[in-house]
């Protein structure tokens, strides 16, 4: 499995051609530099939600989730219309 890890990192190093903005991914073991907005999209909004314990209280109270999002201003609370500021004119 170690070989798999090396192969994957090597593959990315070869294939990233400068036009593709790719960081080395979770395999690098260096989470600092992982794009925060992308990270929050995943860590807060996805994953298998397990029912039946403390999890519910923390992760499923809508007010908690909303306040977290609002505080970080990382995930929009509403679906923004593109060009809702009237566009580039």
């Amino acid at each position, binding site marked *: 499995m170690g070989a798999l890890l090396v192969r994957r990192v090597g593959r*990315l190093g070869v294939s990233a051609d400068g036009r*593709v903005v790719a960081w080395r*991914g*979770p395999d690098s073991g260096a989470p600092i530099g992982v794009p925060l907005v992308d990270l929050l999209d*995943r860590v807060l909004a996805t994953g298998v939600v397990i029912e039946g314990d403390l*999890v519910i209280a923390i*992760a499923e109270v809508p007010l908690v989730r909303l306040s977290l999002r609002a505080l970080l201003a990382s995930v*929009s609370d509403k679906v923004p219309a*593109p060009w809702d500021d009237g566009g*580039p004119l």
Partner: protein
Amino acid sequence: MSIADLAPARKAAAATVTGIAGSDRGETLTCVFAVRGGGEALAASASASACAGYSDAAGAPYLLPLGESGSGLWAVAQDVPAARYAEQALRERLADHTELEAMARMHHEAVSSSAAVGPVVPLPLATLFTDRDRARETLSQQVTRFRAVLDRVRGREEWAVKVYANAAANAEAAAAAAANEGASGTAKATRTTGRVSGSAYLDRVRSRQRDRQARQDAALACAARVDDAIRALAVDAVRRRPHGPDITGRHRPQILNAAYLLDVDRTDEFNAAIASIKAGEAGEAERAPIEIEVSGPWVPYSFVESGGSA
């Protein structure tokens, strides 16, 4: 602020908690980061060294066997101080964005480092149980579901692709259109002959609206082409709500926020497709109507719900 900056304060806080809780060893909760498969040997080899966890925890992460003995499913877990992770304390901490960021990054590091030795099912941030027995009992009820997800994500990775309308290109197009209007003499006619100024003004407004609509349509069509091209390579795809202007910047509207589940073997094709799209869009005009942003590979966070497809 980075996690490195936070580390001294966090260690101090953890020491205080340990001092308080030292008299009562029951004052910990069990946090689970992910579920993974693997035999006893794999579990033993990776358990101690390979997985990162919370820096203020009561101990290192460990593997908790799920289901019946020999089921080959493990929860990647860590015992954490209740004084910092019980509901009220956690709410207060998560309301602080530096704490939230630190926790999210540590959670991600734990999930990602577990994934280095095989597929994992990531669980959401702060999935907490009162103790190891409760964690094991609850998660063991989902063994079938976890197996299905592990089969689904094995050998696959998630890539994030975001597309923005290129406001700079749009502004240039608008300026060019305005310059053309001036050159055509419309503006001059408007100023010198009062009778036609009203209709000329309306023509100009309508013309600008048409141009703007055309640019919007062009950008959305570009985004759709990106989505189609990557979807063709992907096992599955998810479109999220685009981020608002408070995140992306007012003049950089996001028009696609998608995630794709790709076989690891198709990474090269994916990169080539993105590069080709960028080259193609750039070739259509002086400035491409869109910007494309790629991040990854991610552990397949977005594809672990049953069904998963959007």
